[in-house]
């Protein structure tokens, strides 16, 4: 059995899977039930001055007969009295001392408020604080949430309010609704944060009802932009995660969030730099029990590769993600598609995709089921292998075409020649 336990910025957890702050960490009942099912930790639904919510609150992007490939919500932070939340947090921590309990917080920009609230949270025995600088709806209009995360100066200042008074680690949760995630990340570092978590939800309108022409979710005929999450946002999260991991000036532990549904997603997040993981949509969709696929799958993956500790995965693939200018140019290195005709079922999707959407290099031969790639014209874009419904039928084969040369090297060479 591989060691799944983690030490994330000093926070101990039996495994890297935490419930993200959200509707599923609203009560002690939920969090204790989740721990019983096998979750390693939980980030309590954001504590702040109680708010009043609206209904309905959630909208789904369905795809190909599957529900909730993407989820959007306009629910706000906790609508429960602060005292109730703090009492239940303390109870959970007392009963589950070895699980990670992190409290998400959101307050207005007043140092005195932060000083008082951080103390009260610490008194519960919680392991860490997560600053919610990310919610893109409702709270941002009141000067909190993503409006803080979008302005580096606010991020730094607010982080400092918390860090200055906290004796437990402070994690800053970043909003993806920015042009370059590294800028607020660096601001949080400057403010003294001990770790970062990302991504929070993305600005979104999930849809319109075709019969009523009302937006979804529908609040008495009106809607509002909400926060988008679920499997569909994973690529955005992976990009932001890896760019922060690779940023020399950040250097903090990163907690990955955004569309994690299976152990496979978890491995990818960790390889790109996540030291802990938060899950929300998938557990809201299928219930807390789904964590068993995450832990068992992750363990089996590690065992198969004789990797002793899950933390050995962290960041292993991140250095390979970088600047486009450092990629080998097609004049130097190329991929070409090769169709294994024996497994081709004859759907012709590769042919039409290449012909209409790519580089017109997959032809058909009368009387033959499998299309044929004209390798000299193939640019190695991958499209055919992506649309092919048969796993392994279209292989992308690397072809060495010349000495290693990237765009950066190419430019340098041209400048040298001119000089």
């Amino acid at each position, binding site marked *: 059995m591989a060691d799944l336990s983690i030490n994330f910025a000093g926070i101990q957890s039996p495994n890297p899977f935490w419930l993200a702050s959200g509707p599923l960490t609203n009560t002690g009942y939920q969090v204790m039930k989740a721990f019983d099912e096998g979750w390693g930790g939980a980030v309590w639904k954001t504590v702040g001055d109680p708010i009043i919510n609206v209904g309905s609150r959630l909208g789904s992007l369905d795809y*190909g007969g599957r529900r909730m490939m993407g989820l959007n919500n306009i629910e706000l932070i906790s609508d429960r009295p602060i005292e109730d939340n703090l009492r239940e947090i303390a109870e959970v921590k007392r009963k589950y001392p070895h699980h990670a309990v992190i409290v998400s917080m959101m307050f207005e920009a007043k140092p005195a408020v932060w000083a008082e609230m951080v103390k009260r949270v610490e008194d519960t025995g919680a392991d860490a604080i997560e600053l919610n600088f990310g919610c893109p709806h409702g709270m941002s209009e009141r000067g909190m949430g993503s409006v803080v995360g979008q302005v580096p100066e606010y991020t730094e200042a607010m982080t400092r309010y918390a860090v200055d008074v906290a004796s437990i680690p402070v994690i800053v949760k970043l909003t993806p609704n920015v042009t370059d995630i590294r800028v607020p990340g660096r601001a949080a570092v400057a403010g003294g944060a001990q770790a970062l978590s990302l991504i929070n939800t993305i600005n979104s309108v999930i849809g319109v009802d075709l019969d009523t022409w009302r937006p979804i979710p529908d609040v008495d005929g009106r809607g509002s932009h909400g926060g988008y999450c679920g499997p569909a946002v994973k690529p955005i999260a992976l990009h932001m995660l890896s760019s922060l991991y690779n940023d020399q000036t950040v250097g903090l532990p990163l907690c990955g969030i955004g569309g994690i549904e299976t152990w496979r997603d978890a491995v990818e997040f960790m390889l790109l730099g996540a030291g802990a993981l938060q899950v929300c949509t998938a557990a809201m969709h299928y219930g807390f029990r789904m964590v068993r696929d995450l832990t068992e799958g992750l363990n089996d993956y590690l065992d198969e590769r004789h990797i002793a500790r899950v933390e050995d995965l962290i960041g292993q693939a991140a250095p390979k993600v970088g600047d486009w200018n450092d990629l080998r140019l097609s004049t130097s290195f190329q991929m070409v598609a090769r169709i294994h005709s024996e497994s081709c*079922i*004859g*759907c*012709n*999707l590769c*042919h039409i995709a290449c012909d209409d959407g790519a580089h017109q290099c997959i032809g058909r031969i009368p009387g033959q089921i499998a299309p044929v790639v004209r390798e000299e014209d193939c640019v190695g874009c991958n499209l055919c292998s992506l649309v092919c*419904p048969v796993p392994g039928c279209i292989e992308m084969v690397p072809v060495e075409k010349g000495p290693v040369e990237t765009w950066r090297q190419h430019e340098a060479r041209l400048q040298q020649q001119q000089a």
Partner: protein
Amino acid sequence: MSIELTNDSQLTEVVPPLTRREAVEEALRCYYCYDAPCTKACPTGIDIPMFIRHIATDDLVGSARTILHSNILGATCARICPTEALCEGSCVRVKDSHAVSIGRLQRVAMDYVMAHEVPTLPRFTDLGSGRVAVIGAGPAGLGAAATLARLGYAVDVYDRHDVAGGLDTYGIVSYREPLNVSLFEVDVVRKLGVTFHLGEVIDAARFRQLREQADAVVVAVGLGRVPKLEIPGEDLPGVYDALDLIEQTKTRPLAEINLGRRVAVIGAGNTAVDAATCARRLGAEEVSILYRRDESAMSAYSYEYEFAKQDGVAYRWWTLPVEILGSSHVEAIRCVRTRVAEGDVSSRQSPLIRVSGSEFLMPVTSVIRAIGQEKEISLWQAIGAEMHDGRVVVDDVTYATSIPGVYAAGDCLGRPGEATVVQAVEDGKRVAHAIHQALARQAS
């Protein structure tokens, strides 16, 4: 002959409809192949991936429009097409899972528009003008009439029956295709502007009249009756032509049809399965299919064979009826055992010999002949069309006969092999376009 619509409710469809939910799930299994093998395997060339995609996106009207554009009898074909031999048999998913249920999906779309609204069909851009007479209101005649009407022609369809639809109306058992499906399709064709003249037998004189009045004539009179067994006793009451029996189930109250307890069906093709399963539903307790060869040589599709067996029909292979016995009604059938004299057992061409001393007597209350259909040649002979080998001679491409302006479509072409509704519809379409081109040439 009137029709008995209420029988539909007593002979309920064997294949249940897919629910909308099932349909969407099934539709999502389709890979949306380009230049799809299913479409190429469909004689009418329905854009199957497109109609399935419309189902997946909940546009059932668009789905039905796609189907009807290529096959005006899409509702019939959704039910009775040998899909395993055509579209579903060539579905790419046979290779990685199992075929998409194309036939049942087609039925979802067609059922929807039957219950709601018939979509307007795409316009043909190059329209013609003139008058065309179509003889026969069966699948080929309807296919031709619908296409010609959409091409701008005034079309008159003539049929000897009181109700149009031909085989679909009179020759398909209701538990495969309810009568109202065929009537719906006739109505779709009528609404395209086609005029029906029913209960009219076309003889040589009337044919000449029609030929003079119209710019072209399509002959689509189908096949004839089931041939005689040519054995003693087959004129006794209680001996049925399978197609006559099926027609009775669609034109008479079922209670009036009494086959008795023990029924023998002669022949092992798809019509024999219809006759046998029909007899079961009419109350016969023991139904046997007698065939002079064995299952390796029978012409019924494998799913038809399964259907018959599940219905409790018993097969007696290597059994040849030689005499039907009875004083005033069928009482028994005398059979003899057969075997292949030489050659491949599974070939219907291998000669048979009777096994001496193998005769036996089966007590039966009815006998149903289902040994194929006679070619319909009387009209061809009467109008003097060139014949060869018992078939009308036609142009390979246009199906034009030797008589100028007269075309043949459907089963009356007398092609060898299994006759299908879908092929008949395609014949009708082909002839319609051929007429359109010929008349356009004349006009220019």
